[in-house]
């Protein structure tokens, strides 16, 4: 079974990735990296990561979120986060990354923020 499942949806020009499972060292981090690279290669540069179904993240997973963010920014796009679990929010607070990411609790508000 894949560590991380990624389902893609489109809302206007925003691509939403619904993530479920683990973003941890190895398969989970690689799956996220591949998905972001593919979206960028398809010209999809407005990306909302829905982390509501993510059960576990380690430092590799946090690093992959940062890499995704910088890769999308470099292409002139935007990557935002939706539905952080309490644990992910704690890890982003510890690493001071809550100041870096645009974080939303509500999908409609997150989508509006891209326009």
């Amino acid at each position, binding site marked *: 079974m894949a560590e991380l499942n990624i389902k893609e949806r489109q809302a206007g020009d925003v691509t939403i990735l619904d993530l479920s499972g683990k973003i*941890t060292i*190895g398969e989970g981090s690689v799956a996220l990296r591949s998905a972001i690279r593919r979206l960028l290669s398809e010209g999809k540069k407005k990306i909302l990561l829905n982390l509501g179904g993510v059960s576990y993240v*380690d430092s590799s997973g946090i690093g992959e979120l940062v890499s995704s963010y910088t890769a999308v920014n470099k292409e002139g796009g935007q990557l935002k986060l939706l539905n952080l679990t309490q644990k992910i929010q704690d890890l982003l607070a510890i690493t*001071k990354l809550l100041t870096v990411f645009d974080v939303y609790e509500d999908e409609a508000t997150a989508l509006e923020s891209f326009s």
Partner: protein
Amino acid sequence: MIHKTTQLSLPSRLETVERVAAVANDIAARCGFDADAIFGIELAVREAVSNAVLHGNREDETKPVEVSFTDSGANLTIIIRDHGAGFDPAEVPDPTRAENLLNPSGRGLLFIRTFMDEVAWMRHPGGGMVVRMVKRRPR
């Protein structure tokens, strides 16, 4: 007081991280830690074993990662040893400094220090690096 120790010696590959994390989770639960503490113990173990596999042993499968969990009643002590060249934790850049915030890696030691009550890194006299981590049981 009887000390219960579980010891593992596993090959240096990424699957080892998942395996030791599962053992850490089981042992922490058996020791009676609450869900938040179990999460933190598992995360610290994941980070320490990842470091041992990737940075210490550089995924050389001939070099084992050795792990011990000792439940002393008051504390759970976890010791992880690799057979690599070793490193100085004081030299690892602070990932929370503004200039390091967007680094893709370098947050593992921060998580270990955050979630464990005591942490010490030392060089093993027989070679390699040892990290000793302690989580105290709430009274």
